[in-house]
């Protein structure tokens, strides 16, 4: 990951690097077509979790980027085998994100990589129609730390 990438580009590239994830290879941003084997990444902005000043006036800020990943898959009504495959894919993706984060293999966003965390959680079916298309939603969160050094005294 190059330093010049934006946070969105980093997350997009990271998600797309999931092995065995052709569905994620060409992620759309803020858009998900109802065509199987496509996906969309929906950023929902930055949340400031905590702001901690030290006695010298420097400030440590803990931030969180949140994203929703929508993956579109085939699932005919009553197709239990297909639904199982999809659900297992969603679970496996979440476990892969966790592993990458714990092992320090995920991209970094702040000033203290050791404190960073990427999670993919609450993966579940979002909608399914009679035409055999199902949409699964996964919440992705990136928690990172920024340091602001006080200028002047």
């Amino acid at each position, binding site marked *: 990951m190059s330093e010049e990438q934006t946070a969105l580009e980093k997350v997009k590239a990271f998600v797309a690097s999931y092995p065995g994830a052709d569905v994620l290879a060409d992620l759309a941003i803020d858009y998900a077509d109802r065509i199987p084997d496509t996906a969309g990444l929906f950023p929902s902005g930055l949340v400031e979790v905590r702001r901690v*000043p*030290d*006695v*010298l006036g*420097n400030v440590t800020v803990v931030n969180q980027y949140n994203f929703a990943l929508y993956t579109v898959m085939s699932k005919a009504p009553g197709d239990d085998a297909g639904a199982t495959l999809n659900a297992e894919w969603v679970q496996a993706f979440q476990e892969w994100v966790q592993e990458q984060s714990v092992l320090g293999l995920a991209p970094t966003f702040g000033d203290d990589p050791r404190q960073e965390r990427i999670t993919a959680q609450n993966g579940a079916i979002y909608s399914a129609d009679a035409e055999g298309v199902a949409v699964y939603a996964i919440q992705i969160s990136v928690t990172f730390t920024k340091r602001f050094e006080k200028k002047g*005294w």
Partner: protein
Amino acid sequence: MADLTFNTTAEQTIAREMLLMCLNTGTSSSPTWSPLGKRTTDSSMELDWSEETSTDILGETRTTARKPIKKQTFDPLPLDSADAAAVSVWNKAIHDNDPQALCNMDILIVHLYAGTVSTPFAERYTSSSVLPTNLGGEGGGDLGMPMAVTPGGERVTGTASKNATTGVITFTPDSE
């Protein structure tokens, strides 16, 4: 001697960072003042006045006090290679195990809110103790070395200034 005035805006409280404690990480004759407390979120200078209060047989209460023993703890103090003060203390405490050095540290306390903005009141203590209380931390967390500082030795008052370009802090005793 007239009272020093505060240089901060009236009717406003004073920011915590206006009280600064620095450790001399240079030499006695050519000090390098390095601020203490990077990433420490709460640290206060405790003042022990050795106060004694008694009531005499006439019912009058009197209190005696001595010049205060000051003590300030920095906890937590996560280690950071860019924190010159912490690196200096680590070397004397952990690497050298040198209690004599740790009890003869050169400390500068700068009261940025008192005196003038460019030359605030400062006090230097050349034989201070700076003693780490532990080295470690929880798994997955930061390696910390909290420490307690007791300013000691001769107290020299004066003013401090900081070079706007280099950031170098200079202490000027009142006698100069």
